[in-house]
C-alpha cells in the first residue's frame, strides 16, 4: 500500500519540481549577430548591480548566478568590438538563451593587431616599471563613499555605508602612512548567522600572525579596502604581482602564469590593451589588466583567486598626467560561521570624487580612523541630515532589491538608528 502511495506521490512532486523552478541563474550562448559565430569571453553583469557578473567562456557559453531578488533586473552583455546589449532577465529563459551581439563599426585606419606573447610580457613589465611615474607621489585627498553589502546569495545580510576623506601622501610610501577621516557611518542589523566558535578561531589566527611579527593588514575594512589599491607602496615594494621585484605576472616554471590578449579599446587618442592572465591555460578572463599603450599606465585591473571567492577590482582616472582611483571593489568570502561553502560574500566598494591636491587641510592624527577599529563591533553617531545631503550616495544609490531584502523585518532607517551611538 505504502509503496504505491509513495510512488504516485513522487510523480506529483516531480511535476511540481518541473514547474516550480525558481530562477537565480541563467545560461546560454553569446554569438555574433552577423555570422552566428561564438563571441569569446563576453562579460555579463546586472545593470544596476554590476558586482554580480559572469564571463562567457571561449565557446561563448555562459552561466550567470545572481541573487533571486534580481529577477526583474536587466543583464548587460559587453565584449570588445561589439555594441553593449541590454536584456531584461524576465525575457530570458533559464537555459538555452542565445544572446546576439552587434559588431561595432571600426573606421578603416583602426586595424587591430594582436600583440605577440613576448610583447604582452613586455607590456606588463613596462607597466610595472612605470608605476612610480603614473601614480601619485604628492600629498592629496580624495572624498570617498564606501559601501559594503553582504549576501549569502539568497538574501542580503548586512549593509555598512561610510562617507570618508582619504589622505594619501604618496604611492611610494607604505599604507600605514595614509589617514582616513570618517565623515559619517551607518550600518544595518546583522541578518547573517554569526557563529561564536568561528569568531574565536579568527581571533586566535590573528593573534598568531601578529605574534610572528608578520605584517597584518588593517582590521578596519574601510582602510583595508582603500589600501588594497594595487599600486600602493605596500604592493610595489613587495614581491607580489605588482611588485617591482616580483614575478611581473610571469610566474615561475613550476607555477607559470599564462597570458591571453583579449582585445583593445580606443578611447580618444589612447589605445587600451586588455590582457588576461591566470595560472590556468588558457586564462578565462576573470583576471586581467588594462594597459594604456601611451604611458603604460594600468587603468583598470581585476584579479580573482580560487574560483572567484576572492576578487579585487580597481579602475583609475587620469588627472594632470597622474592616475587616481575612481573605484575600488573587493569581494571576499564572509567568514562569520562554518558555512563557508554557500558563498557568503562581503562586497566592499569605494567610489571616489576627483582628487584635491592644493590647499589641503591635513587630517590630524586624532581625527583619523584607527587602523584596527572594527566597524561592525562599534557604534557611530548617526547624522541623518548628512546622508540626505551627501552627493556621492546620490550618484550611487543602493539598489531597491537590496533594500527590500534588508528591510524584511525592519526599515533601514530604524536599523541605522539601532546600531548607532545614542
Amino acid at each position: 500500500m505504502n509503496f504505491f502511495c509513495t510512488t504516485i506521490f513522487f510523480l506529483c512532486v516531480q511535476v511540481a519540481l518541473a514547474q516550480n523552478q525558481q530562477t537565480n541563474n541563467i545560461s546560454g550562448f553569446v554569438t555574433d549577430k552577423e555570422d552566428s559565430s561564438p563571441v569569446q569571453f563576453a562579460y555579463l553583469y546586472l545593470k544596476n548591480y554590476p558586482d554580480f557578473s559572469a564571463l562567457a567562456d571561449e565557446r561563448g557559453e555562459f552561466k550567470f548566478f545572481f541573487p533571486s531578488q534580481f529577477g526583474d533586473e536587466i543583464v548587460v552583455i559587453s565584449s570588445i568590438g561589439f555594441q553593449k546589449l541590454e536584456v531584461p532577465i524576465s525575457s530570458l529563459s533559464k537555459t538555452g538563451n542565445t544572446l546576439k551581439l552587434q559588431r561595432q563599426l571600426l573606421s578603416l585606419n583602426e586595424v587591430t593587431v594582436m600583440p605577440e606573447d613576448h610583447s604582452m610580457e613586455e607590456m606588463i613589465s613596462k607597466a610595472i616599471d612605470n608605476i612610480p611615474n603614473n601614480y601619485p607621489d604628492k600629498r592629496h585627498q580624495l572624498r570617498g563613499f564606501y559601501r559594503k553589502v553582504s549576501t549569502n546569495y539568497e538574501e542580503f545580510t548586512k549593509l555598512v555605508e561610510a562617507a570618508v576623506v582619504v589622505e594619501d601622501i604618496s604611492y611610494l610610501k607604505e599604507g600605514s602612512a595614509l589617514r582616513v577621516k570618517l565623515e559619517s557611518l551607518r550600518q544595518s542589523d546583522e541578518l547573517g548567522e554569526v557563529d561564536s566558535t568561528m569568531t574565536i578561531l579568527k581571533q586566535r589566527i590573528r593573534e598568531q600572525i601578529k605574534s610572528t611579527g608578520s605584517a597584518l593588514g588593517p582590521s578596519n575594512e574601510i582602510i583595508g579596502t582603500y589600501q588594497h589599491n594595487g599600486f600602493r607602496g605596500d604592493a610595489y615594494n613587495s614581491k607580489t604581482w605588482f611588485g617591482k621585484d616580483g614575478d611581473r605576472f610571469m610566474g615561475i616554471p613550476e607555477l607559470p602564469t599564462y597570458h591571453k590578449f583579449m582585445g583593445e579599446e580606443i578611447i580618444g587618442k589612447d589605445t587600451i590593451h586588455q590582457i588576461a592572465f591566470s595560472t590556468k591555460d588558457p586564462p578565462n578572463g576573470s583576471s586581467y589588466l588594462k594597459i594604456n599603450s601611451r604611458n603604460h599606465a594600468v587603468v583598470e585591473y581585476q584579479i580573482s583567486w580560487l574560483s572567484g571567492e576572492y576578487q579585487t577590482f580597481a579602475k583609475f582616472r587620469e588627472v594632470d598626467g597622474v592616475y587616481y582611483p575612481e573605484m575600488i571593489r573587493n569581494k571576499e568570502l564572509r567568514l562569520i560561521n562554518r558555512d563557508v561553502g554557500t558563498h557568503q560574500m562581503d562586497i566592499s566598494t569605494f567610489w571616489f570624487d576627483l582628487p584635491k591636491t592644493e590647499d589641503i587641510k591635513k587630517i590630524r592624527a586624532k581625527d583619523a580612523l584607527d587602523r584596527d577599529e572594527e566597524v561592525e563591533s562599534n557604534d557611530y553617531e548617526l547624522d541623518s541630515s548628512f546622508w540626505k545631503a551627501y552627493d556621492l550616495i546620490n550618484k550611487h544609490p543602493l539598489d531597491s532589491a537590496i533594500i527590500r531584502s534588508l528591510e524584511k523585518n525592519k526599515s533601514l532607517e530604524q536599523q541605522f538608528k539601532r546600531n548607532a551611538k545614542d
Partner: protein
Amino acid sequence: MRKIEIKVYLICFFLGFIALCSCSSDEKSEVQNADEAISQIVLVFEDSVASRFFKQRKSVFKYMDDNQLPVEIAFNSKEAGSEIVLKTTREFLDLVYRDNSQVEFTYFLQKGDSVLILVKDKKPWLTSINKDNSSYPYNLELLRNTELFGKPHSKVQDFYFLWNETKAFPFELGMNDDLKQIKDEAIQGFERELCWLDSLANTNSFSEEIKAFYTSKNRMAQKKLEAYDPESLDINTQMALNSILQTDNSPLANSVYLDEFSELIITNQTEGESEALIDSLIARGELNSNDKSLLLHYLQKEIPNLSFIEADEVLERYEAKLANPAQMVQLNSSNKALQAIESDIELMGLQKSYSNFEELLDQKKGKFLYVDLWAAWCIPCIKAFPASLALNEAYKSKGVEVIFLSVDDNYKFWEEVAIKYDIAIPELSFVAIKKEESEYLKALDVALIPRYLIFDPEGKLIHPNAPRPDTEEIKLYFNSILKD
C-alpha cells in the same frame, strides 16, 4: 501540515484508482512490491525548494547498508532525483545528514517509514508520511541543538570544529584554553542532553528504541570526547578503543557513529598498533560487530599500501573474519580494477617526443620499473628526486629502472623543471599529456602525490603504492622480489 494530509488523501484516491486498473495484472508482482515496501525506507522532498536547498548546501546522507558498508548519497549532481530509497532488512537504521554548514543530524528511522523532507529555518526538517508522529523522533538532534544550545551546532561539534581547525593550521594556535573550556561545556551539554531525553521519553514523545539509541550515542560520544586531550592536542587511541570494546553499545551496533569512531581509531593508530590490536581481537575468540568494524577499517587502511600479492595474502588471512563477502569484494575492488584496465596514458618525452605508456612498458620489458609520479608544485616529490636517482643507480645492474612521470597540468614547462632538478634523463623522464582522457590515471587516482608504482618485467603493475625511494622498505621489497 494540513496541506500534506490533503495531498496524501488525494494520492490515496489516485492509488485506489490505479489499484482498480491493475487488479487484473500479475498478482505475483504485487506481492513482491508489498515485500519491498516493508524492507525499505523512503524519503521524498516536499518540493523544489527542499531539493534545491540540498543541492546548494551540497548535502549528503550517509548510512550503513546491510553489509555494514557505508553508503553516501550526495545531492550536488544533476541526476539526484526527488526520492531516496534505502533498502534494508534491519528493523532500525540511522541516517546521518551533513552539509556545507557543517551541521550534522542523525535520524533514527524504522523499516517501512515514508518520510517527507522539508526545509525549515534553513535546516532540513523530516516529517512522517505514513505515521502520526510528534516532531521529536525525526528531528531530535536539530531540536536538541536549538532547545539546549540555542544554535544549529551542539557544543561537542564546536569542540571538534576548533580541534580540527587547530590541527590543520600550519602554525601553532594558542587554542588550548579555548578547547579546554569548550570541552567542559560539551561534557555539561551531554549531561543536559540525557536529562532532556529522559523528560521527553516520560512525556511519550518517542519510543523506547529511540531513547535507547540516542542515550547510547550520547554515552559513546562522551567517551570519545574524553580521549581528546586539549593540552597535548593528541587523541588517546587506547582510551578511545576501550570505550568501543568495553562499553555495551548494542543499540549502536552497525551505526554510522560506531563505524566512523572505529575508523578514527584506526586512522590515528600506527600500523604496528593496528596490527597488534587485530591480532589480539582474533586471539580473544569470535569477533563481534564492533571488532569486525575495526578489522574492516584496518584492512581499508592497509590494502592500498601493499603489492597485489601481499594484498591477496592479507585478504585471504582475514576473509573468514569479515562480516560478509561483500566487504571482501569492496576491499578488493580497487586492485581488481587496476589490474583489469589498460594503461592508456599518452606521454611526452624530452624534446617533444611522443609515445604512450603501453609502448614504454613494452620497450622496457625484462626490467622492473619503479615509476615516480610527481608534479612541479609538489615539493616533497622534488625533494625525493635524489633518493630516486640513487635507487636507480643502486639497482640498475639488478634489473630495476626508475621512471620519472610527471602528472602536472602545466606540462608546457615540464622539460624546464625536469632539467632544473636533474631528472631530464632520456628514456627515463616523461610527462603525461591529455590526462583527462586516461582511464588508467583516473583509476590510479593520482591526486595524491608523491606516489610510486612498480611494474614487473612483463609490464604488469604489481604495486600500486610502493614505499618511498628513501626508505629501507623499498630496498627490502626489491631485494625480496629480485631473489625470486
